[in-house]
């Protein structure tokens, strides 16, 4: 029982979604389901928040290594929530809104929540992202070595495209005769890059996409037919 009902729920809503794709009559069901998902996920997020608190409180109470950092996490978590939910520093923006103290947009520039986003959230997140520039270099240095034919292809295309990406590509046209009056200079490596992009990259992506589509069909059917229910757990 504990698993039959969920599997049935999954099958029914899944089939309705499929049929709705072909039926203008049921089409709203698709939109409603999508809308509902957002709400369910948002409420579930509260569970995530609770889990985060429990996890870190446990670290603190057990005095585990680095419990101080858990305290920092909890403090920043609660400050962010308090500032955001209480709309600290938010002012109403229009004449009509002035009568309602809580009516300003929560992300208003100059508010507490905006400050947290602008000066704590955004710099850390974008710096994390920027670290990828370093990792791209170290991964290329390590992985692009001519060990076998596949690796050679990988590395040669990477080299060609790297040269073709910036204006340094024009170096390859130095050995060509100058172009006719008014015509743009022919840049072989730019053409080669473009050719690789248009043919191999497109083709590789396409083949993977075709495969993925079939994989998704099979995975969806596994769920709809109740063949795989690992996500629903075991029977207690």
């Amino acid at each position, binding site marked *: 029982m504990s698993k039959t009902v969920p599997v049935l729920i999954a099958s029914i809503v899944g089939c309705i979604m499929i049929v709705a794709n072909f039926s203008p009559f049921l089409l709203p069901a698709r939109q409603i389901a999508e*809308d509902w998902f957002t709400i369910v996920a948002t409420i579930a997020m509260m569970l995530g928040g609770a889990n985060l608190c429990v996890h870190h409180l446990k670290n603190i109470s057990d005095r585990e290594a680095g419990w101080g950092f858990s305290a920092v996490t909890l403090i920043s978590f609660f400050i962010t929530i308090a500032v955001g939910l209480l709309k600290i520093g938010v002012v109403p923006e229009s004449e009509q809104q002035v009568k309602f103290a809580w009516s300003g947009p929560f992300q208003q520039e100059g508010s507490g929540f905006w400050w947290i986003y602008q000066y704590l959230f*955004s710099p850390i*997140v974008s710096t994390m992202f920027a670290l990828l520039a370093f990792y791209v270099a170290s991964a290329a*240095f390590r992985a692009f070595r001519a060990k076998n034919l596949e690796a050679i292809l990988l590395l040669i295309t990477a080299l060609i495209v790297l040269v073709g990406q910036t204006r*340094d590509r024009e170096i390859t046209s130095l050995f060509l005769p100058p172009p006719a009056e008014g015509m743009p200079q022919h840049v072989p490596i730019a053409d080669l890059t473009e050719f690789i992009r248009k043919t191999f*990259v497109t083709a590789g992506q396409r083949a993977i996409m075709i495969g993925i589509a079939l994989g998704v069909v099979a995975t969806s059917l596994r769920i709809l037919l109740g063949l795989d229910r690992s996500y629903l757990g075991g029977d207690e």
Partner: protein
Amino acid sequence: MTSPLLNKLNALDRRWIFLAMALAVLSPILLQIGSDETPSPPTIKLFDEIERLPEGSRILMAMDFDPTSAAELYPMALSFTRHCCLRHHKLYFVTIWPTGKPMIESTIKAVIGADFGSGDRAYQYGVDYVNLGYLAGDAVAISQISSDIRKARPQDARGTSLDELPMMSGVISVKEMDLIVNASAGFPGGKEWVQYAATPKKIPIAVGCTGVQSTQLFPYYPDQLLGLVTGIRGAIEYETMLAAKYPDPYANRSKRPAFLRGGAQRWAHRLMIGLIVLGNGIHLANRYRRTPHP
């Protein structure tokens, strides 16, 4: 038989690579070295389309990026908006990224506020441009506004009812748009706009995307995508075209944020090529000497 240099290179700490990369990017910034670009066809296509559309055409500007990807997409968003304003199109700003709201605001401030906010044909809020703000629900939001904008978002970002805005009269859904211009940093983004709005409703769409996304979007060009502006290179290309067509004031360095990032690109790419060559040099030397790889 081993050589001390090869041993050292074999055991090269990756932190040296990090240092080299930092220097390659930092030096052009400190020395203010920029780089121009020759426009490519997918970029030219978008530029020509915005030129071709009659004045006052409705353009949906979907700004789906966040501060982390603003490096590539913000200069693009600026150029697109500037170009549309120069052609005096009607702009409908929207985002399906919650973090995209401040991006729309700063784009409006930097372009309309600075260059088009005054004069005899000044851009007016609600008449020439509107900020529809953030639509929650990822791809769902796209399919919602492509069937009914008011259902997805009854008010604009300032909380004004859409019916009170003159430029929203006659606009029911995305169908009424003449062009969708999307600055997309990932999911949800360009792919979803193509799948859920542009292709089913048959509206031309052009996407400005990050370099990473370009390979994913390339299969859609030119059938489902009108134009594709990729990464910082696309932004530099667009700036170059804008500067060529409207040299005053867009040939000015201060109006060309992407141009200044081009120099760092060149040097970093040179470093990457050097590293790959060095890596293979080490590999071949190892094989030649038949020493085991550490």
